[in-house]
């Protein structure tokens, strides 16, 4: 049996009858159905709900400030600044502690390998490649993430995110996008792939696509610590130490603002060219503020993030370290594979105010943004003298010795912020849009912008002799 064509005929017949009836009725039947249901709900509520001395809630007063004409926008900036400052300041100490611990262990591993008489290549592969990359990712990535996320989750549980979307909708409307894009961007801080998925809250396909294509301009979990690291060692270190963290936070806020501006700009261009169309209906519920379970949220989200970052370190950073070490230590002629590739990329890198190794690191970092910095450092180390890289100042020394200037630092951060989405995000875009074309376009748009911006800055700095 099953469904024979005969039964579809019956079905079509029924559809036809329903249509005739609807046309005869004249009035909108859907309206009647909805009104009927709501009327029923209303009458039930009046029967079973009783309100005694309604308490005036805090909500009202908090929202008066949070969405106020005067304080609304500045408050968002201040909150962002406080969150970053807490993250940067809070991460310093555990970061140093973890670095001491992990690089102390590295020495022990090295000694162990010596005692066992292991060949140099094995020591290089396992300790200088695999282990070191793991150690860098854990000491650099883990602390800021384990601090940022609990704070962010508290704001989320409190109910602040919809207010952000409420405040920013006007800007998104101007560029032909949807205010809920602000929510997808907030999720993007955690992971751009998740941000792309979150775009499902936007009903209209056109506006959803805009949100998907631009999500990458929010620095995710894997790039955010890179920005913090470079801001701290290049900007923060340039200022008196008490203000160092503030300067670094200001830098990171600046970058996030650049990301937001580029998002709006690209949204505007898309909605006037490839994705032209009418704005869809915008409706956003502002739920009441709810008191988060502070202790539980902090512990849970701290543990979640720690496990997440550690998991990725093991699954992605460790193998990437192994591979990079091989590439940096296998010689073809008198140059390593890395050196060959970097040499080939050097002119392009220089034009953007970067260098060949940086460009190579970004390319090899396609699977995951976390590994860009380890790849870069490992390649530099293989090229130059061996350094102990267990402190920020040592890292700064290494980078400066490789010819980094403030332009290099700035452009690395901008390139990180603007360049192509990571592999996971690209796959998610492919899945969500069902289109190869849009996936490629998402990589092309972002990378083109990254290249143009870096090029302009590098050439500007050269012309005006600022380096």
């Amino acid at each position, binding site marked *: 049996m099953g469904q024979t064509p005969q039964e579809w005929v019956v079905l079509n017949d029924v559809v036809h009858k329903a249509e005739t009836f609807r046309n005869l009725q004249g009035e909108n039947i859907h309206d009647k159905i*909805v*009104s009927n249901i*709501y009327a029923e709900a209303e009458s039930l509520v009046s029967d079973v709900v009783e309100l005694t001395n309604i308490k005036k809630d805090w909500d009202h007063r908090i929202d008066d400030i949070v*969405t106020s004409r005067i304080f609304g*926008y500045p408050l968002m900036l201040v909150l962002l600044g406080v969150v970053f400052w807490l993250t940067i300041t809070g991460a310093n100490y555990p970061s140093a502690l973890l670095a001491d611990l992990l690089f102390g262990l590295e020495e022990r591993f090295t000694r162990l390998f010596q005692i066992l008489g292991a060949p140099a290549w094995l020591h290089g592969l396992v300790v200088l490649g695999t282990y070191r990359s793991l150690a860098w990712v854990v000491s650099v990535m883990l602390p800021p993430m384990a601090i940022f996320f609990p704070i962010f989750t508290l704001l989320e549980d409190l109910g602040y995110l919809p207010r952000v979307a*409420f405040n920013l909708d006007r800007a998104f409307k101007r560029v032909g996008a949807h*205010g809920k894009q602000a929510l997808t961007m907030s999720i993007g801080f955690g992971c751009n792939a998740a941000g792309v998925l979150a775009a499902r809250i936007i009903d209209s396909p056109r506006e959803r696509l805009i949100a998907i294509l631009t999500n990458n301009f929010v620095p995710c979990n894997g790039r955010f610590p890179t920005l913090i690291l470079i801001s701290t060692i290049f900007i923060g270190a340039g200022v008196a130490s008490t203000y160092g963290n503030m300067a670094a936070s200001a830098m990171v806020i600046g970058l996030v603002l650049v990301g937001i501006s580029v998002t709006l700009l690209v949204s505007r261009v898309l909605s006037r060219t490839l994705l032209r169309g009418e704005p869809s*209906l915008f409706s956003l*519920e502002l739920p009441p503020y709810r008191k988060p379970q502070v202790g539980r949220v902090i512990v849970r989200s701290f543990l979640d993030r720690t496990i997440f970052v550690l998991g990725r370190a093991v699954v992605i950073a460790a193998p990437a370290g192994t591979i990079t070490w091989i590439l940096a230590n296998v010689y073809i002629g008198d140059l390593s594979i890395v050196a060959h590739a970097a040499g080939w990329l050097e002119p392009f890198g220089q034009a953007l105010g970067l260098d060949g190794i940086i460009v190579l690191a970004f390319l090899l970092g396609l699977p995951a943004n976390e590994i860009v910095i380890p790849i870069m450092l490992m390649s530099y180390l293989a090229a130059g003298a061996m350094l102990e890289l267990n402190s920020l100042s040592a890292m700064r020394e290494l980078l400066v010795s490789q010819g980094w200037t403030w332009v290099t630092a700035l452009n690395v951060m901008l390139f990180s912020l603007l360049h192509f989405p990571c592999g996971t995000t690209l796959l998610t875009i492919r899945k969500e849009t069902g289109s190869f074309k849009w996936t490629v376009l998402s990589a092309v748009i972002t990378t083109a912008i990254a290249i143009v911006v870096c090029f302009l800055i590098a050439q500007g700095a050269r012309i005006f002799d600022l380096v």
Partner: protein
Amino acid sequence: MYTTEETTLANLPLGRRGIVKSLDAEGIIRRRLLDLGLIPGTVVEPIRKSPAGDPIAFKIRGAVIALRLEEGHRVCVRPL
């Protein structure tokens, strides 16, 4: 603006409640507005504006829901 003449939701001053008279929308937008509870006879109150003046948040059937001016203009109300 303290009249009782029909106007649109977007024109209702903050704090002034109105009763929904009709919807000037068809198709999906009409269905969405109905889903939100904007059915003729519903009492609505604009409670706050975003810092840029648009969107506006309304109290609709117990929830606070923000709508852009465009949508607000699609809902005809009689001020109470």
